[in-house]
């Protein structure tokens, strides 16, 4: 059995998966489970270890900025916020209820640490470029992180933003691509093949990492590698859509779907089997 590194992050990922299944089931509506599950380790790594923030002061100027460009990935986002204690259980449980602040796409709300409104694909990186540029101009030491989906890289505006980040030498910007290779209608390779994403970014002057997006050590090493002066960083995280729930993995029916009681119970039981503490894993 593979040795578990960073057990606290693995544990957080497990909590997040349980949490996202819970609100999906409780809201009785379809949710974007597949893409939420594929980004879980990335978000757990960010919120458990990487991002600098102050739970008591979500507007703290020095906080790292996080933008969810793949706006439909809210399950992976809100579950990280609640697991990290940034938002309360009470707020979290309002997901997809009338007048809630938490719906199927982020709605900007700094009090809840949600930096931007998203849902229209291909826009988050542009805003992240603007934020990172502002940080450079102000000599502010924070880092801007943005998570993109692979499907949204079909949008031309993503590549406008990629070009500009290279041109502006934004080495305070980290983009992560959830490369789960499935988009709304099916296999990305058949719809609009993105091929070697890391090299595409490299061609535009980025420092690119091509890793397994479910391996915490790979994520940590890529995010925390020494910065390359003048180069924005991209982490192309190869992932499995629906990761962690066997009947959802690589099954695009779970791109946006509703959980039955039977499915919910099955999924929760599976996630609960994941070993989290080092003793268990090494035993």
């Amino acid at each position: 059995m593979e040795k578990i590194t960073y057990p606290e992050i693995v544990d957080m990922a497990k909590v997040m998966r349980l949490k996202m299944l819970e609100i999906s089931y409780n809201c009785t509506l379809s949710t974007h489970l597949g893409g939420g599950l594929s980004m879980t380790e990335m978000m757990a790594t960010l919120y458990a270890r990487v991002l600098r923030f102050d739970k008591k002061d979500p507007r703290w100027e020095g906080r790292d900025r996080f933008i969810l460009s793949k706006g439909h990935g809210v399950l992976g986002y809100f579950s990280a916020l609640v697991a990290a204690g940034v938002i309360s259980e009470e707020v979290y449980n309002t997901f997809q209820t009338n007048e809630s602040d938490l719906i199927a796409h982020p709605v900007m709300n700094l009090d809840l640490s949600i930096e931007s409104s998203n849902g229209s694909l291909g826009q988050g990186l542009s805003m992240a470029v603007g934020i990172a540029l502002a940080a450079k101009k102000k000599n502010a030491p924070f880092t801007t992180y943005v998570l993109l989906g692979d499907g949204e890289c079909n949008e031309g505006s993503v590549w406008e933003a990629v070009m500009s980040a290279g041109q502006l030498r934004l080495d305070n910007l980290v983009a992560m691509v959830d490369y789960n290779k499935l988009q709304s209608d099916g296999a990305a390779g058949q719809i609009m093949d993105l091929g070697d994403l890391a090299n595409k970014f490299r061609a535009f002057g980025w420092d690119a990492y091509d890793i397994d997006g479910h391996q915490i050590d790979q994520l940590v090493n890529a995010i925390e590698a020494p910065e390359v002066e003048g180069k924005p960083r991209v982490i192309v995280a190869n992932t499995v859509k629906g990761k962690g729930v066997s009947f959802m993995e690589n099954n695009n029916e779970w791109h946006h779907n509703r959980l039955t009681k039977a499915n919910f119970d099955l999924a929760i039981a599976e996630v609960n089997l994941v070993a989290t503490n080092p003793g268990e894993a090494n035993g």
Partner: protein
Amino acid sequence: MVDITPSNARQWSRLGSRGVFGQAILAVAENYPQMMVMSADLGNSSGLDRFKKTYPDQFLNIGIAEQNMIGVASGLAKEGYNVFVTSFAPFISMRAAEQIRMNLGYMEMNVKAVAIGSGISMAFLGNSHYGIEDAAVMRAIPNMTVVSPADCAEIFKVVEAAAEFKGPMYIRLTGAVNNPPVYTENYDFEIGKAIALKEGSDVNIIACGTMVYESLEAAKILEEQGISVGVINMHTIKPLDTEAINKLIGKSKLLVTVEEHSVIGGLGSAVAEYICQFKDTPPQLRLGLPDAFGKTGDYRYLLEKYDLVGPKIANSIQGLLREVS
């Protein structure tokens, strides 16, 4: 604050709306160290050459990428910058319409989008470069303020007001070089507050942009024929100054809207949407550009062709006034 004098007004008119925008933003920037001005590779065509040289750190050419420009501007605005983004009207208002909707409308970022050469002033560059639907598109987006200055002096006023304004705005610059001035002396300008230039009891004209001057010309012609004509400069298309319109409803046989924009969706539509809820309102004559991509020509030729010059506006008004009187 800009000093409006007859000699300044003449000089600005010769310089034209783009050049004056460049001067205005240069003058205002001094007081706003957090100002950023962006262009999608049309800086020189937007009158920004001097700004670039004077404030190189506050200018950014983001390349020919309007969608990214709006997103980057919003990121800067989010971090406290006062951002002006510029491009030609169709490129900024329609190529990047959804970015404007998300960032300026939905998130209310403090970004002012300046549409250079809106209306038909692009002349032989053709319909690809005209701004005939931009006000319609921008006006439909929640939280947007839409402003269309009447002349070069008012471009100064609008840029001064926009620099102070916190929130998203679309500034629609019509006119080319040598459009005659409306204002030759100092006056008070406030976003959202229409300016009555002339009172009248038979006909009241509500105009914006270049059509304010032409409406005043039309009024002169009609006055000579004994028709009492009022003219209002409705420089802010959204939010519409409904109080100013209320004052006109009871005292007009005919309301007229005139704009260098399609008759669909602009100032005329905004006024019609407002007055249609009341009983006993006067009929409204909506003058503007036709809903068409026509053959093109030089700017003055096109204004004549589309009956958007003083004498022709007067003719159109006379025609309808006979019917309704």
